[in-house]
């Protein structure tokens, strides 16, 4: 049996509609009114987008009381699917006893998966809201501790979000 085609109901054009001209003028009115409506464009470098706390931007180390929270357990380095994180541990006099001498994230490799953030037992590495990562040389793509350390109060939104969602 042949499949029945769906019936399309088309209105017959009225006599004045067959000249198309009133329709064209109506269409032009619609397009012209769009010109005066608010624009959707964001003037990017001047007006920046504020990402929501759920946004996964550049991973950073949380800095509390002037030192990083990180205890250099190396879990983030283990879990990283792109092998972007390199940690070297050492001992310290502080109560956390261990700290990373070297903590490097290769931003050329990072895929912003936030696995490091999930696995971290100390909430020491979180995804920030920073999405502007430009560098002109490959060597600049390896972010060391100097670039990664971020004060705690800048990351409050994300930490709150993580506590709520976990």
């Amino acid at each position, binding site marked *: 049996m042949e499949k029945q085609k769906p019936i399309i109901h088309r209105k017959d054009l009225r006599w004045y509609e067959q000249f198309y001209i009133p329709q064209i003028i109506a*269409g032009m009115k619609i*397009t012209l009114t*769009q*010109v005066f409506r*608010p*624009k*959707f464009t964001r003037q990017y470098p001047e007006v920046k987008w504020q990402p929501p706390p759920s946004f996964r931007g550049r991973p950073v180390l949380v800095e509390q009381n002037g030192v990083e929270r990180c205890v250099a357990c190396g879990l983030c380095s283990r879990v990283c699917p792109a092998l972007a994180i390199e940690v070297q541990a050492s001992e310290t006099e502080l109560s956390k006893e261990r700290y990373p001498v070297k903590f490097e994230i290769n931003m050329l490799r990072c895929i912003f998966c936030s696995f490091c953030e999930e696995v971290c037992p100390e909430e020491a590495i979180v995804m920030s809201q920073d999405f502007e990562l430009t560098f002109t040389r490959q060597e600049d793509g390896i972010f060391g501790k100097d670039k990664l350390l971020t004060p705690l109060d800048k990351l409050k939104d994300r930490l709150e979000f993580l506590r709520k969602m976990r």
Partner: protein
Amino acid sequence: MEIIITIIKIIVVLGVMLGCVAYIVLLERRLSAGIQNRIGPNRVGWQGLLQPIADVMKLVFKEDIVPTKANRFIHDLAPIISIGVAMTTFAVIPFGDRINLFGYDIKLQIADVNIGILYILALTSLGVYGLTLSGWSSNSKYPLLGGIRSSAQMISYELSMGLSIIGVIMIAGSLELDTIVEAQAGWRWNIILQPIGFITFVVAAFAETNRLPFDLPEAEPELVAGYHTEYSGMKFALFYLSEYANMFVASAIITTLFLGGWQVPFVHSLGLPDFWVSVIQVFGFLFKIILIVAFFIIIRWTIPRFRYDQLMNLGWKFMLPIAILNLLITGLIILLI
């Protein structure tokens, strides 16, 4: 002295025309952006006013690629034909009344040809060679399809274009563009006397300039970029320029034939000296052209593209009979009056 005046006129007209065309591109980009709720180019210069210069700079430094097995000579020739036709058409269009400058009586028209309309019709139909040759010489399928389409489309619309002009010629009783403009003094514009002729001519002009409801030669969804797919760098820029120059010239022809040319109503009642009257008339002419160009642009972003068979149906079954009917009615009325 005549020659020097003519050369100065040519330089001024070409300069004004190229400047206008460059800014029509900007107008199109800004207006289309507005219609799509965007902002459009506004970074180069104040509100993007230097954008045309930046565009040209970019295109000049682009590599000029010629496809292998392309017919190199014709491939180079095609954009030259396109731009040449677009530029030379403006020669016979009067852009103002006589003006008295430094003791010289200058007629504001480059070439005062007594068969002005015939010249325009002849040259605009030459424009199709640019498109067809570019399509054929590229040795590529999409440009070839675009070229074939353009030739078919232009030939179909040439006829109704010519026929809709004849009504205007009958009213003015001359092929000379100057006489036609003078016949439209005051409010006796041909758009009022010849509304059907105006509509058919505008539609045919859209088809002749390959603007959107009829832009089949470069229909992006089907033919990549149509006839100029294989062009790059300055040769592409020439095609781009000629498209907009064609639009400018088509608007100028529409203005001259139907919107009273450089006639500005009531300008003589202001009591200004003759020189300033002429200047106002020249700017009035430019203003009318820009209005028509804006109309072209808004139409482009309003109406979807015609299918090929719809285009041919409209051209042969609708436009042609209406143009002939308009011709008969005009003739009858002229006979009776």
